């Protein structure tokens, strides 16, 4: 099927622009929409498409997919509800939004599971066809909330989405069941009309996604258009809304919408190109990191080798082997996988080979909450190995920032010949936002030379290669890869003599090597921490790391809007900390550290800098809500 626009699907009318004569158009500066349904209803796809339309329209946006770990939980039940929230605005925004302005609920379970988050006055669109007695009973509704007045405080729109979809598709050669599957596209069409979203991208997408099943492609496009036309012709919706493009939010450049895992995968490919080294990924499938394996596996024409190993240990083992051979080596996993990889990370510390370990954190301990977010692997990343085994730790702050963080992790790994922990999380991994695509000349040069000649002269004048003779500046050891004549050497996990790298059990040498490995990591050059304190007179500093950047920044803005003075700083480097961190902390009377764990960064800064850092923590599998966080910070300011 060709990708011509508009897509020819026969006699279904094409979307028309909303006619202002009939429906009122209102302006909004920002809107939060949540699509919710059964895990099988296609809510993630619906949300993704709405997001792409919104991105191409030029709004700033932020998304929050939220779904159960089960692939298909029992239909119509509360545990089976999957949702996708998108926040878009005519200005720059930082979070997926606290409370939805609009909830699209495809069944009673989706309605019930999401009501608690809905502010009064919010718009609710439900598929009224799904509110049968049995479906209501399944989730414990005694009476239909559509009829018992319990939703009077909301603007409720019961729409028979299923019936309307089947009706719209009756010309197609589809069973009723097949036709019903397109109801998510009907809903997407309706919401696209309501918020004046462009439609071409979705039509192209559907045509290409179902290229091998043209009838299904046409049916989905027809349902999508029918949804749009329904909004346009029915009198159910009194108004449609415009959210102008966020012109000022974006500095000049070319943009695309991107999720954290995609940005991270691209960052790794970019690092490989900038280092002029082949990329090697050793990995084992684990939620929520697997998408990086999927993505990198698609780019073999970049010389990317992806190895799906028999287990987590083999994944990192293969990566370390490739690092020995001169690849930019990466392993991707989530918390439980890091636990399994720990011994090999320790070996990489001892071998002093470059290796990027990507941990997409999820709720723990153990299997925990595979599809929910958390930041509780920080101490594991810092200390989760036997012996003194320091590892640099880098954390991205937003989905798009995963690109830069990946490049930075690769830079440190290559420059200092060390494993590096890249700590993303489930929220960043699956969340999306606009990303300014960098120009080639904005990417750093990551080339490091392999050692190709002897680097040491013995007393007798003979030239030899010493695998542990270090660069005096970086303390990195030489990287001489197999195939280099004359530099044959053996490395291993047993303690090595300084310089020669030969096995050594000498006490003084071990003391020296432990301290030297630590000094190498402590000496890694990282940029100073910048503090955002517009008035310069704040008494309280909010210090964060990782994905709390969005909620913290939004909370800080609200506080400042309300006249509070508050300073904000966000760490990219958790190990080593920026050199000025101690001095920054000392400048403030109060330091508050919001984290999605029980206070791991605050433990670190308290121990290192003897500051009385106060923790604000949340471990419910979801990102902070900006309002609640603002309340906590306000308490801290005045408490």
């Amino acid at each position, binding site marked *: 099927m060709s990708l011509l626009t508009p897509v020819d699907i026969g006699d279904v009318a094409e979307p028309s622009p909303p006619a202002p004569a009939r429906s009122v158009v209102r302006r909004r500066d920002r809107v939060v929409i949540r699509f919710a349904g059964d895990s099988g209803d296609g809510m993630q796809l619906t949300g993704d498409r709405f997001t*792409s339309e919104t991105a191409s329209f*030029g709004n700033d946006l932020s998304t929050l997919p939220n779904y159960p770990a089960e692939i298909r939980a029992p239909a119509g039940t509360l545990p089976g509800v999957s949702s996708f929230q998108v926040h878009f605005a005519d200005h720059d925004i930082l979070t997926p939004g606290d409370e939805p302005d609009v909830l699209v609920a495809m069944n009673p379970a989706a309605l019930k599971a999401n009501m608690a988050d809905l502010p009064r006055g919010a718009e609710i669109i439900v598929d009224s066809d799904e509110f049968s007695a049995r479906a209501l009973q399944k989730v414990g509704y005694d009476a239909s909330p559509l009829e018992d007045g319990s939703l009077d405080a909301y603007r409720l729109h019961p729409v028979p989405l299923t019936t309307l979809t089947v009706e719209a598709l009756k010309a197609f050669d589809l069973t009723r069941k097949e036709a019903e599957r397109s109801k998510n596209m009907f809903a997407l069409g309706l919401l696209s009309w309501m918020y004046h979203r462009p439609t071409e991208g979705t039509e192209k997408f559907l045509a290409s996604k179902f290229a091998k099943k043209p009838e299904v492609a046409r049916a989905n496009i027809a349902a999508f258009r029918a949804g749009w036309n329904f909004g346009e012709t029915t009198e159910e919706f009194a108004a449609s809304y415009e959210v102008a493009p966020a012109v000022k939010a974006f500095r000049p*450049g*070319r943009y695309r919408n991107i999720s954290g895992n995609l940005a991270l995968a691209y960052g790794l490919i970019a690092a490989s190109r900038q280092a002029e080294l082949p990329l*090697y990924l050793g990995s084992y499938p684990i939620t929520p990191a697997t998408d990086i394996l999927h993505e990198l596996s698609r780019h073999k024409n970049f010389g990317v080798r992806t190895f799906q190993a028999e287990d987590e240990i083999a994944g990192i*083992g293969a990566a370390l082997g490739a690092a020995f051979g001169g690849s930019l080596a990466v392993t991707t996993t989530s918390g439980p996988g890091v636990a399994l990889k720990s011994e090999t990370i320790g070996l990489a510390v001892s071998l002093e080979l470059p290796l990027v370990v990507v941990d997409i954190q999820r709720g723990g301990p153990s299997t925990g909450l595979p599809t929910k977010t958390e930041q509780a692997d920080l101490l594991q990343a810092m200390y989760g190995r036997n012996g003194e085994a320091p590892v640099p730790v880098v954390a991205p702050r937003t989905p798009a920032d995963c690109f830069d963080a990946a490049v930075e992790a690769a830079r440190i790994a290559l420059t200092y010949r060390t494993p590096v922990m890249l700590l993303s999380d489930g929220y960043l991994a699956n969340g999306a936002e606009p990303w300014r695509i960098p120009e080639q000349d904005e990417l750093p040069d990551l080339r490091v030379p392999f050692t190709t000649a002897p680097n040491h002269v013995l007393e007798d004048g003979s030239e030899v290669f010493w695998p542990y003779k270090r660069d005096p500046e970086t303390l990195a050891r030489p990287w001489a890869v197999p195939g280099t004549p004359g530099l*044959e050497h053996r490395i291993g996990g047993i303690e090595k003599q300084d310089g020669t790298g030969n*096995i050594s059990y000498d006490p003084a040498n071990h003391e020296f090597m432990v301290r030297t490995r630590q000094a190498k990591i402590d000496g890694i050059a990282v940029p100073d921490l910048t503090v955002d304190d517009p008035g310069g007179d704040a008494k309280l500093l909010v210090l964060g790391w990782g994905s709390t950047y969005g909620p913290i920044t939004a909370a800080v803005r609200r506080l400042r809007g309300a006249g509070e003075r508050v300073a904000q700083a966000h760490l990219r480097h958790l190990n080593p900390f920026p050199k000025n961190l101690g001095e920054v902390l000392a400048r403030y009377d109060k330091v508050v550290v919001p984290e999605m764990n029980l206070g791991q960064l605050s433990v670190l800064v308290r121990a290192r800098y003897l500051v009385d850092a106060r923790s604000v923590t949340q471990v419910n599998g979801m990102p902070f809500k900006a309002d609640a966080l603002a309340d906590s910070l306000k308490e801290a300011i005045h408490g």
Partner: protein
Amino acid sequence: MAETLLSLVPKAEARQTMKDFKSDQEVRWCPGCGDYAILAAVQGFMPELGLARENIVFVSGIGCSSRFPYYMNTYGMHSIHGRAPAIATGLATSRRDLSVWVVTGDGDALSIGGNHLIHALRRNVNLKILLFNNRIYGLTKGQYSPTSEVGKITKSTPMGSLDAPFNPVSLAIGAEATFVARTVDSDRKHLTSVLRAAAEHQGTALVEIYQNCNIFNDGAFDALKDKERAKEAVIRLEQGRPIRFGANGEQGVVRDRATGELKVVTVTARNEADLLVHDAGAASPTTAFALSRLADPDTLHHTPIGVFRDVERPVYDTLMADQLDTAVARYGEGDLMSLLAGGDTWTRDE
């Protein structure tokens, strides 16, 4: 194909000798350890390959045998317990110009590293795995291993070990290995011939080497080493030859027509024509597996040595490299800037 894989590894410019493969490190195995003989055999054999020394890598795990790389004047990595096949897989699949050897032991390969071993074998990565089997944990001072006979009395099993042992050859064949051989540390000629066949093999080669631990399991293989006893105990497998053994070849292996299993018989004029002719290249692993089951795990009687299986199957590293080539042929050499700017984009002007 036989030419291609080894031909990817650069050749040595000058003629090499055993001395070229000895590193400057003092060998620190217990005096009398079987590892010395294996080291000498490998160092003596390497010049025969004629490969550039810098393109040879030995990777090991943990255990007595895993000190091996330190003594080879090639590139080497002494890694962590059980993981050498995984690490070597990453190296071999990313650097096809290297000849990658794994040195491991019965505990390293079959206990803590069992998973990596079987998956390397099924993938057919171009690795040569030398499994030193002494049927004991030596480095931790004498606990039973996954190849120890049932009832083994050790410090951790004072009333005898309870678990049935692995037969490494059976295990490897079951794991879809394309090359499986067994040899003995003290038979340098046989050991070298098996190494030669392994080196020439395309893909993963598993060589089980019976190795004497004279400290914790001394004499474990005496049944196979004592000249007289060996005549009755050892079955030498030779490609294309009827399988016979005994002082004068008076015993042989035939297939039981009723059960299909292999059995040892006294060779007579009547059954001589029925003797099994060894074919390591048989497509089906069935007969190789049956051969691996002939040995009595306790007495080691009827232990076949030699190459059980040697077949061709696509090599993982080659397939991986081919996919990269195919991707370039299909989509062109990757262009970073177009990748980053893929999908729907929009532009903000000044």
